[in-house]
């Protein structure tokens, strides 16, 4: 099913306050043959358990799992960073977890995921910053852009909390600013986009 010949291989998403409602407008929209891997940092309390995975497994066509340590990243799978761990991507396109200090008051941190994923995927990566009430994700999104990836930010007017999208918009010239409902369908068109 995986469309490995496409330009993009992976999507990273950073989201905080208002995140579950926002992700509900994106992840269930993606079809079974989406073909790209998705890695998601949703800020969540340290004892948040496996809630996100259970919640989204029910509504998504794609497989939804909690990211484990040193696992090969599979196309067409949604990986959530576990509560209280940073999620990183190795150059070999495997996952890695750490319990390092919080970044932007967050663990998991979107910046940590974005910066490492940017180096692993370069121009085959799509980075998305959604609703949230802190600055996490802005620096990471800038790194994605710098290494040739595609950058998307949820339009502040469609965001429950505007700080995170605004911080990203301030940190770089993003490629696309989209309303929440537009993001899922847009990803579907990107997934089939070929190398130019």
């Amino acid at each position, binding site marked *: 099913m995986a469309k490995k010949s496409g330009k993009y291989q992976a999507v990273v998403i950073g989201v905080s306050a208002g995140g579950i409602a926002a992700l509900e407008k994106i992840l269930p929209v993606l079809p079974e043959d989406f073909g790209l891997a998705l890695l998601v940092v949703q800020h969540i309390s340290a004892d948040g358990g496996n809630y996100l995975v259970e919640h989204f497994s029910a509504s998504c066509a794609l497989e939804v799992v909690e990211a484990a340590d040193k696992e090969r990243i599979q196309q067409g799978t949604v990986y959530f960073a*576990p509560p209280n761990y940073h999620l*990183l991507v*190795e150059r070999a396109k495997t996952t890695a*977890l*750490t*319990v*390092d200090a919080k970044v932007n008051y967050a663990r998991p941190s979107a910046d*940590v995921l974005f910066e490492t994923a940017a180096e*692993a995927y370069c121009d085959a990566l799509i980075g998305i910053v959604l609703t949230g009430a802190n600055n996490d994700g802005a620096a990471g999104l800038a790194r994605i852009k710098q290494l040739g990836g595609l950058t998307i930010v949820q339009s502040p007017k469609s965001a429950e909390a505007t700080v995170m999208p605004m911080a990203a918009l301030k940190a770089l010239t993003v490629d696309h600013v989209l309303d929440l409902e537009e993001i899922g369908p847009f990803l579907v068109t990107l997934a089939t986009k070929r190398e130019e």
Partner: protein
Amino acid sequence: MVKKKQLLENEQLELELLLEGIYRRYGYDFRDYAKAHTKRRLEYRRTISGLNNYAEMLHQAIYDEDFFTSLLLDLSINVTEMFRDPWFYKEVRELVVPHLKTYPFFKVWHAGCSAGQEVYSMAILLEEEELKERTQIYATDFNERILSQAKKGIYPLDSIRQYTANYLKSGGLQSFSDYYTADDRHVILKSSLRERVLFSSHNLATDGVFGEMNVIFCRNVLIYFNKELQERVLQLFCESLCPGGFLCLGTKESMKFSTVMEHFEEVAAREKIYRKKRR
């Protein structure tokens, strides 16, 4: 884009040469640490030191021992808590302690003990279970500076609220404040807690088997290693445990894909507690 990828490759090459240089100059081996993490840590030090690249960093690291000492701290794992994952300690109390009570004497090894928070957690637990006099705890880390912090048992005052909450959730039997005194900035753990603890230097990446242990704690250390080093360390733990001994890993660490798994049974899946088979 080819150019950007080549730049990243070049940078990676420099980084590997830096780690090779550190190993040959000082004997500390970070070559098999997980790369993305190692790079983030070094990148932090490179930026605040005003160095342009890892080649410059290599030069400074091999000539300037003080600079190397700070690098060593950057590469050490030093984020932990007392009674981290309280439900884990609850399981230790309920599942491991009854076995320990059957021994006249037993040994516990905290491998990669960092600043000692988990060592003191276990010391408290064993004291409360009236096992203190029967135990010898070994606490090891490769970083001497962090080890000397561990020996002191002094932690920032602002951490105590978290530690206390963890202790209560872990099934602690006393008041947590029985175990420390505080000044305006620190909590100082009761020195009697380390009566049965021996702190010493040991590097999981390069050193060998460590005694005949009854319990090994190594939580949230393996995630910093690549698969090969993880496997080496799990072998080392397997050889360091007596039959029926327990191995406790971090919640996101697993022996599932290791060749040593055949020598163990999983006794607590969520808490990642394994027991070595008696054969």
